[in-house]
């Protein structure tokens, strides 16, 4: 009996003291979303939308003015350009009613595309008498969230594209640069110069700020996993920097380059519902997907 207790104690100490060795396995490159012989290569892809319901990826192929859908194995499904009318699309969502909302930088619009009705309706928005410059878009249920690059705000829209609320960062010099909406409707937003993440509840009220402890960071995008770990995309260094719930640096991985598993001017990071980490790699013209 005593021997058994000693044995268990030793294992307990071993496991507890060396949790690093039993940390989650390293991320490994699994697949890429890129073109094929039929649709050609991607040029300067800028963002990714993941349709949980249909189990599809949509890549915004900005340089080719089109949207490309893939199944979750990376197989190309369709390439869509709205009859070649899209002008520098940079982000998109598919809302709960199946409408596509595309941000077109060339026209400075949020463009509503109803595939069933075959209509394309570009909308220029104004908020507080100022023209909105849409940068990123997210949705949850019937709510649409839009990042205004000029004001650095996040706007809440209904499905008629009317702005009903906004959140901003009073202390941020340049406002936010990216945001994510959790499945519970909470909002996390990234302040680039401040190197901090700002947490808001689903009414848009400020909850807390988490300062990221890494002076070498030039973050352009981020995501949060279910355990509250933050993944920050460092565009200039082409790497991903991981922080714990308190903003303490955990580890970095990847780096600049052109082979699979290396990044060149990445623009966006997203965790997919299948536990994989997706990075939109603009310079290499693909979306790299990592799993572990």
């Amino acid at each position, binding site marked *: 009996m005593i021997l058994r207790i000693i044995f268990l104690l030793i294992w307990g100490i071993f496991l507890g003291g060396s949790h690093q060795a039993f940390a989650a396995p390293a991320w490994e490159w699994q697949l890429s979303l*890129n073109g094929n012989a039929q649709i050609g290569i991607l040029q300067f892809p800028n963002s990714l939308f993941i349709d949980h319901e249909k189990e599809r990826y949509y890549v915004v192929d900005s*340089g080719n003015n089109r949207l490309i859908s893939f199944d979750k194995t990376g197989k190309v499904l369709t390439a869509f350009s709205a009859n070649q009318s899209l002008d520098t699309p940079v982000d998109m969502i598919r809302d709960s009613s199946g409408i596509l909302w595309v941000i077109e930088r060339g026209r400075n619009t949020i463009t509503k595309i109803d595939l069933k009705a075959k209509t394309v309706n570009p909308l220029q928005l104004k908020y507080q*008498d100022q023209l909105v410059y849409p940068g990123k878009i997210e949705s949850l249920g019937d709510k649409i969230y839009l990042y205004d690059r*000029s004001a650095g705000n996040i706007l809440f829209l209904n499905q008629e594209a009317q702005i009903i609320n906004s959140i901003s960062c009073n202390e941020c010099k340049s406002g936010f*640069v990216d945001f994510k909406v959790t499945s519970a409707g909470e909002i996390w937003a990234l302040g680039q110069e401040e190197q901090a993440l700002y947490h808001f509840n689903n009414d848009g009220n400020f909850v807390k700020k988490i300062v990221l402890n890494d002076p070498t960071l030039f973050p352009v995008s981020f995501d949060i996993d279910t355990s509250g770990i933050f993944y920050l995309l460092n565009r200039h260094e082409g790497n991903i920097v991981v922080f714990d719930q308190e903003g303490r640096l955990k580890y970095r991985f990847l780096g600049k380059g052109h082979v699979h598993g290396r990044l060149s001017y990445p623009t966006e990071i997203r965790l997919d519902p299948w536990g994989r980490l997706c990075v939109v790699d603009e310079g290499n013209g693909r979306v790299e997907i990592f799993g572990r």
Partner: protein
Amino acid sequence: MKKFIDIVFLISLFVFFLVVNSQADENPCFKCHVKDDFEKEYVHAPLKKGLCTDCHNPHVARYKSLLQKKEKDFCYSCHQDKAEKFSQGVVHQPVIEGKCLICHTPHASKLKGLIGGETIAESCFNCHKLLPKQYPFEHKPFSDGQCIKCHSPHQSSNLQLLTNQPDIMCVTCHPKNELKVKHKNYAGEVKLCLTCHHPHGSDRKFLIRKILHQPYSNGCQECHDSDKQGAKNCIRCHISIEKKMSSLHNHLSINKGNSCVACHSPHAGDDKYLLLNNRQENICKKCHLITFDNAKERIYKHVDSGICTNCHDVHGSNEPAMLKGDGIDICVKCHKTQGQFSHPVGQKVRDIRNDQKMTCVTCHYPHGTDYKYELKLSGVKDLCVQCHRSY
């Protein structure tokens, strides 16, 4: 008799020690090196104690001036407490290079901190040769040669090695209430002083910068009106910039509210672009300091012109890194012949690693790398075999 001999012996011994001791006081170095040259108001502690050999080997040494270690290593061997601090934030170039003696003299100086030269300003102007030394109207600390009143000579957490944020520094001598009286029409608290005033001097009274923004010289209302806000306010006149804001990558998102004033002064400047911070490079550093710092540490670097706009379209571009072209066009502007004889590049030549077009920046990283010609990997083998695997 024996007693007498003992006394003589003791006296001789005393005289011997007296002579020896007096010789020890006389530093043998000063037999050749003029002692007066080492006697000024401020003397370096080892020299004061006559410990020349703490730094110099009198016979033979690896380094110039018979020094036993590299300049930086020597300084930090005593000033250890400074080493960590001097590697943080914005660091003065001589400190980065470990060239302490560019500013300090190692033996004696008439200036505190063993600063070389006759004045602090003289020491600064030895390197900062492009800075005007005189203006018709000068800021008092500048005309007094007190550069260190505003600049921290080793390192700082502020650009241009300022001791604090400019607006905070200004109010230490110019109280807020005084500023308000002098800027009657300024809405709210007076701030952003350097957007109008040059901190060294100017041709204009009150140190107003040389070139005025046309609407500013006409009055405030042209821009400061309730319905004129944000970047749109600037684009009303600077129409060509609007198209840039529709580019895939652009700088619209910097400085919420109005991105233009993150780089340009809306009131007055020293060049026709009314750039803030005097030099373009200093503006870019405000956000991209890491890029500059990384480049500094590289062994092989592109010639530093300090003019980022030679390659980057800083308002907006459809290319990554806001390049002015596709990574070939920009390079062949200067490297004219490379476009013809180098590794094939262009639309028809694909990089097998990502199926993208081969350009100069496929292999070179112009800001700097540790490989010759600013190659991304060693050109002897590693870079080539990324694609030419059978070699």
